[in-house]
């Protein structure tokens, strides 16, 4: 790897810790980001010459802090900057800094940085954009590309989100156990939002799809900080297992391929292995939660070498557990797919009939209903359901998928 490549990788991975610690120090997001940028510039000059520091995050925090304090002083006194070496020479300070910033500080800092992006007044897309900007350090053009909007619009969106967060007051006191658990839950939801933004991309090599990698990176970071949280293991496992299918999810025209029709040889084994290992680990805690259960469902799909080998009885049971945990008609609708495999399409239709009121404007409800009716050879009713689904489709790919069913019915 070239100097630049490893420095870049080190800066990217140290960023959340460094920005989070600088935020605690300066209590100002813009100042923290500026200080971090400044430290990065110094790292680019200093590291190739002196080699990488033992703890890049601690180095960036100390240098960022010194540099920012210096700028403030200089502004105040209009005096000369001390020379570069004085700011970046941390041979003595580094050990001390690394000791002072022990794990617990890091954890609360990074959690705080993630948590301020989850402000309840911010719409989901703004939470995601803000996290990508300040935690992951993606540039505004990169985020704009991922969201398929103009750079100017994204810049504005992020500026507004930052202003709202700053106005709301950042909780700087160390969180107690209850606060910490709540923050962790909000942050987990936000990380899953980042993932879903990426997952909705129809092109697996697009900027948008790379948000899946970013979400996985954030979840790994969370799990390194909170290694015993089964729901964080579940979240990471769920995302790894869903992401393992990325190469098999779309055909050459960008149309989605159903799970049962995917070429399972294209599923990525290392991601599946990591996901399954995490589920195994999480289960030992015997504290099931929605992410763990969803991950377990994804895990059963991943374990089946062919679609026919899928353990639908177990999946049905897991969806029932999920219904008990977080009752939702959408979960029941998902369970209907398992019920159709186990007890036939009529049983599935009976299960979803009571959901019609609540899901009448939900694309997938009519799509699934049409598919069950088609299996029963009730073609006229199936056509009606598919037409309803098409009218509710929100992406061309969704519409194209239903149109394929209608074409099959017409044959």
């Amino acid at each position, binding site marked *: *790897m070239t100097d630049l*490549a*490893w420095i870049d*990788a*080190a800066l*990217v*991975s*140290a960023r959340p810790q460094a920005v989070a610690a600088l935020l605690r120090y300066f209590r100002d997001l813009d100042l923290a980001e500026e200080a971090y940028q400044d430290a990065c510039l110094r790292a680019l000059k200093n590291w190739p010459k002196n080699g990488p520091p033992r703890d*890049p995050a601690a180095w960036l925090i100390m240098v960022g802090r010194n540099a920012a304090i210096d700028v403030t002083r200089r502004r105040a006194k209009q005096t000369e900057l001390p020379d570069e070496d004085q700011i970046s020479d941390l041979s003595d300070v580094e050990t001390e800094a690394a000791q002072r910033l022990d794990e617990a500080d890091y954890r609360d800092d990074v959690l705080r940085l993630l948590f301020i992006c989850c402000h309840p007044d911010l719409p989901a897309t703004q939470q995601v954009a803000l996290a990508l900007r300040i935690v992951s350090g993606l540039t505004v053009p990169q985020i704009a590309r991922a969201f398929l909007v103009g750079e100017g619009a994204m810049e504005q969106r992020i500026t507004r989100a930052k202003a709202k967060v700053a106005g709301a007051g950042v909780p700087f006191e160390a969180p107690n156990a209850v606060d910490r658990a709540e923050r962790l839950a909000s942050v987990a939801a936000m990380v899953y939002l980042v993932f879903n933004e990426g997952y909705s991309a129809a092109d697996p090599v697009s900027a948008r799809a790379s948000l899946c*990698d970013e979400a996985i*990176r954030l979840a*790994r*970071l969370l*799990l*390194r900080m909170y*290694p*015993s949280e089964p729901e964080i*293991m579940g979240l*990471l496992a769920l995302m790894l297992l869903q992401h393992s299918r990325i190469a098999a999810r779309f055909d050459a025209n960008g149309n989605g391929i159903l799970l049962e029709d995917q070429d399972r040889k294209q599923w990525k084994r*290392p991601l599946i*292995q*990591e996901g399954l*290992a*995490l589920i*195994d*680990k999480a289960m*030992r805690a015997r504290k099931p939660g929605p992410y763990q259960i969803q991950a377990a469902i994804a895990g059963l799909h991943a374990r089946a070498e062919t679609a026919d080998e899928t353990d639908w009885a177990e999946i049905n049971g897991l969806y029932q557990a999920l219904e008990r945990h977080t009752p939702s008609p959408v979960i029941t609708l998902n369970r209907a797919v398992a019920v159709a495999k186990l007890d036939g399409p009529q049983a599935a239709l009976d299960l979803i009939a009571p959901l019609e009121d609540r899901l009448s404007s939900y694309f997938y409800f009519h799509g699934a209903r049409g598919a069950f009716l088609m299996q029963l050879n009730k073609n006229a009713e199936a056509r009606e359901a598919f037409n309803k689904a098409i009218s509710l489709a929100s992406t061309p790919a969704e519409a194209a998928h239903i149109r394929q069913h209608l074409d099959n019915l017409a044959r």
Partner: protein
Amino acid sequence: MLYAVLCYNDEAAVFSWTKEEDAAVMGRLNVVHEKWEAKGKLKPSLRLLPTSAATTLRKKDNEVLDGPYAETKEQLLGFYIIEVDDLEEGLAFARELTAANPGGAYELRPIMLYNPGSPVEAR
């Protein structure tokens, strides 16, 4: 002589590499692997999954901890490769070892890639 060559790096950085960067590094490493495998000198090699997937069994209180073995007082003295159904079975193996061993800890880390290499002569 048989040697175990242990690989160390900053996990957060390595798992932040893009697919292309990862493939490039693995590609360069594979050139080395193939050369030494052709000489019959490369035995099993493996790449581990991240420490977040690890579980540790400590002798003290027979305690199971989530995450890697993080103490710095002890040194790595050896390792086993096992093929088991799940973590529970892996822990059963580690518990038997723990019972037979007066101290220390066993970390179970899932393996990402396993390359058997050339066989080792019986000795």
